[in-house]
């Protein structure tokens, strides 16, 4: 149960919270089991993520993963973003007990969905 300091900091001071008015990739994922929600909005230009914002509802790991993910995405290429793993998100918030790792999975799913949206166009 103990959360890392960086985890708590993401919670107390979320990075990149909100929605982008000029996003060109938006996706929301819901965890069907617990109802946690994560919404990502990205502004992608020339295969690079210029800006990323998140909104999240649910247990603390979901919020922290959203914040960490949005922060990691900004400035990265779409290719880099596609390669992002669940573990990288987990590491970014200082680790998660195995029972909580579904939060990072939700984040990665939301990201893939958002990226697929761009690719589909």
């Amino acid at each position, binding site marked *: 149960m103990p959360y890392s300091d960086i985890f708590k900091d993401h*919670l*107390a001071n979320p990075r990149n919270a909100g929605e982008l008015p000029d996003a060109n990739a938006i996706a929301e994922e819901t965890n069907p089991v617990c109802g946690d*929600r994560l919404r990502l909005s990205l502004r992608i230009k020339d295969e690079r993520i210029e800006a990323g914002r998140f*909104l*999240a*509802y649910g*247990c603390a790991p979901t*919020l922290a993963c959203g914040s960490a993910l949005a922060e990691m995405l900004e400035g990265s290429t779409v290719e880099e973003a596609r390669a992002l793993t669940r573990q990288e998100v987990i590491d970014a918030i200082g680790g998660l007990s195995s029972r909580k790792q579904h939060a990072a999975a939700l984040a990665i799913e939301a990201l893939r969905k958002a990226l697929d949206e761009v690719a589909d166009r």
Partner: protein
Amino acid sequence: MDHSATTPIDSRVVDAMMPYLTQRFGNASSIHQFGQEARAAVDKARRQIASLISARANEIVFTSGGTEANNLAIRGVCEAAQAHGRHIITSAIEHPSVRGVLEYLEKNGWTITRLPVYDGGVVRIEDVRAAIRDDTVLISVMMANNEIGTIQPVKEIGALVRATRESGQKHLSFHTDAVQASGRIPIDVEHVRCDLLSLSAHKMYAPKGTGALFIRRGVRLFPQQIGGHQERERRAGTESVPNIVAFGKAAELAREEMDQRQEQTERLRDRFEEKVQSRIDDIVFNGDRRRRLSNVSNISFRFIEGEGLLIHLDMQGVAVSTGSACSSGTLEPSPVIKALGRDEELARGAIRFSFGKDNTDEDVDVAVEAVARAVESLRSISPLARESLST
């Protein structure tokens, strides 16, 4: 702000137990003087506990906590009474230690009726009456709930059980979990007429790991922890003398200071609720506000989830609980709040603030500020909050 989860140990209680952590280390089962000294100390504590609830000393059995008291009461009575029936009545909002044992019995062929508590979090006596069957051997309804503090109609249930027993259903017993109620409201087992009543030291400014079960004289119960003559054969195992002494002292103090503590926590709680209500929108108070312990406030904050709020508050030095302390390791929404008919979102957004005798006005004001900040921050990232704005 989390005094329902546990309380700090009163310094007078520490002082009372200290001699038993140092020189007076006897085993209460030993015949020699060290043993007799320990035995006398345990018996004094037994009288102190008995006196808190107007019981007789020999009706008190010491246990390792409220959980064991509940296990012993329910399993003990059910084992003894099973020839007469295998039906139990309980409420939908019992503590996990009652809920868990009943689920275990259910798996072993018992039938459990779980009474609704409606939106106020209080069981209705008509429902209890209607649920009694010929094969009902136990009614277990808590005195006061651990999450929302609501006080159940235990006196009415006690009278009903007594009447049912007198009309011929001899093997019906009434157990009440008074772990949260004890030290917070006056308890009189003659008044409540319960047959069994559970207590826990650490909710009363004494150490964790000690509790007691009141077993009314004449009530048959099978011991659960076996193999020793302690506690008149009702609970084997070397008595935790220092903790028991502490528990006794705490009970004595609780009795003496009951009114004062009640007034104090009620004043703080009301101050807190008024301020929160004036500062924060979209909140729902959980549990009948006129019929609850003076020290508890349970509030659901819309659009956000309790765990994040808890961590936010913790970082600001304010300790609170989501759901029951015991089940907060898992992230299921509180079954108690759900039993009030609240939707999933409100059940997940419920936070329990619980005040103690040593809290101050300033603690309350700091907490209100912290809550306001945390709720604002979490709502700013919540998709639910955004959606509610746009509709």
